[in-house]
């Protein structure tokens, strides 16, 4: 019985499917939604904004809030007693996910998210997580 599940969400529809799937597959688990902010982007705007912020934690939380808000809605709408936790990390999504994965029993991730530009800059996150994760990974499509 899996009790600790990590669901990385980038705010894309596919990542919402991943959370929905996680809730169906592990209805009683403790689900942690991880959102990575300040990743590589065409002008490095978000990353620079975060590093120049007076309070990095507060700024990062602001960036992540819409994604967590959506995650809460999805959890509330689902049946079961899953509990939701949230976690924010900075920088490259793949590294951040792999670093956190150790503390969980499994990772459930959407097969792709973001725009073509994002995929050019960081590659397919799900693919790289599958290859490097220390724990089993479910890819939702």
């Amino acid at each position, binding site marked *: 019985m899996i009790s600790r599940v990590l669901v990385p969400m980038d705010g894309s529809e596919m990542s919402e499917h991943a959370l929905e799937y996680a809730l169906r597959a592990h209805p009683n688990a403790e689900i942690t939604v991880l959102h990575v902010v300040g990743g590589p982007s065409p*002008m490095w*705007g*978000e990353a620079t904004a975060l590093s120049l912020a007076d309070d990095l934690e507060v700024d990062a*939380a602001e960036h992540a809030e819409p994604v967590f808000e959506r995650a809460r809605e999805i959890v509330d709408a689902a049946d079961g007693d899953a509990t939701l*936790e949230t976690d924010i990390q900075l*920088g490259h999504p793949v590294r951040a996910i792999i670093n956190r994965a150790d503390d969980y029993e499994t990772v459930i991730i959407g097969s792709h998210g973001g725009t073509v530009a994002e995929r050019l800059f960081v590659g397919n996150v799900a693919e790289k997580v599958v290859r490097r994760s220390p724990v089993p990974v479910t890819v939702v499509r």
Partner: protein
Amino acid sequence: MVETVLLVGIVASIFVGFNIGGSSTGIAWGPAVGAGIIKKTTAAALMTMFVFLGGWTVGRNVMDTLSGDIITIEISLAAGVAVLFFIGLGILVANVFGVPVPTSMTTVGAIVGLGLATGTTNFETIGWIVSWWVVTPIIGFWIGATIGRYLYPELNRRFEIKSSEGSLLALDRSGSVPKPALGPNTTLQELGGTIVVLIIGCYMAFSAGASNVPNAVAPLVSSGALEPNAAIIIATVAIGLGGFTIARRTMESVGSELSDIPLLAALIVMTTASTITTALSWIGIPISLVMGSVMTIVGLGWGRATRPVTAREVMRGDTDTEIAMGALAAEPDAPVTQIGEEESEAALDAGDLFNPRAVMKYVSMWIIGPSMSTLLAYGFFTLVPFVN
């Protein structure tokens, strides 16, 4: 026949200029528009004016390099039109994929491809250009990092007066419907801040004109089919057209990324990038705004993220951090978001934001872009030699 080819060439020029106008207006005016200091239409009008000034003056040096120095022969009209198509293709790919591939690089790449196919490449000029391309991002990064690490906090403290004045500007606009009398101090401060932002925007537009006007028309100027003066006017009109139309979107997309950054940081980046671009255009090096801008942004962020103080601050501020996060989690409308103990020990490290490998991957696109353009142009001019 010649008229038809020239006409096709001018249409291609306008397409290239139009797209350049879209992207560079976004970079030059995105922050000012995002901060609500200036309307999009005003931005486009200022853009057109200063692009013309830049193209008419400093831009001629770049025009000479592109039309005469990269290859030892003149670019025939037909070849010039083909080169323009490759430039347009590069822009199209950049737009579709959302990757900022510098137009100047695509242009030089395509002309070099023509030179390789005809055996007329001037390797000395190319070596000179490419070495500046290598040095420019490093200079931008270094300036950004120095400012970010040592000067930014001080500048930020002083600018705080100005940024509070930014909100005064917003107040003034909302109050401008009933038109109340403005406090004399408010007006002066407000005026000062707005003027600084406008001047820097115009400076950037000028450097965009100096560096980018030649990209749109140099291939046609080389053969003498188009007079330089007429060419500069055509390019300006095309860039202006892009500024008034598609830039509305790019000012939001590129501009929104830039206006993520505090206005002060954006102004530092714009000033640095414009200075680099204008200086290099002056000595005839084809260069794009984006090359200076992006690495200055990265430098600024990296310099700030890795400053020695950070480590101490993070350790000292650890408890504050927990309180801050706890306060967020305690919001009544935020249900089960307690931050577990194991999370709080993994304090966020700003150093993670600028992973060297991710930055290198980004920069590699500046190598792949012009290489592709050279290869494609080389292949085309080898297979279709009659256009030479």
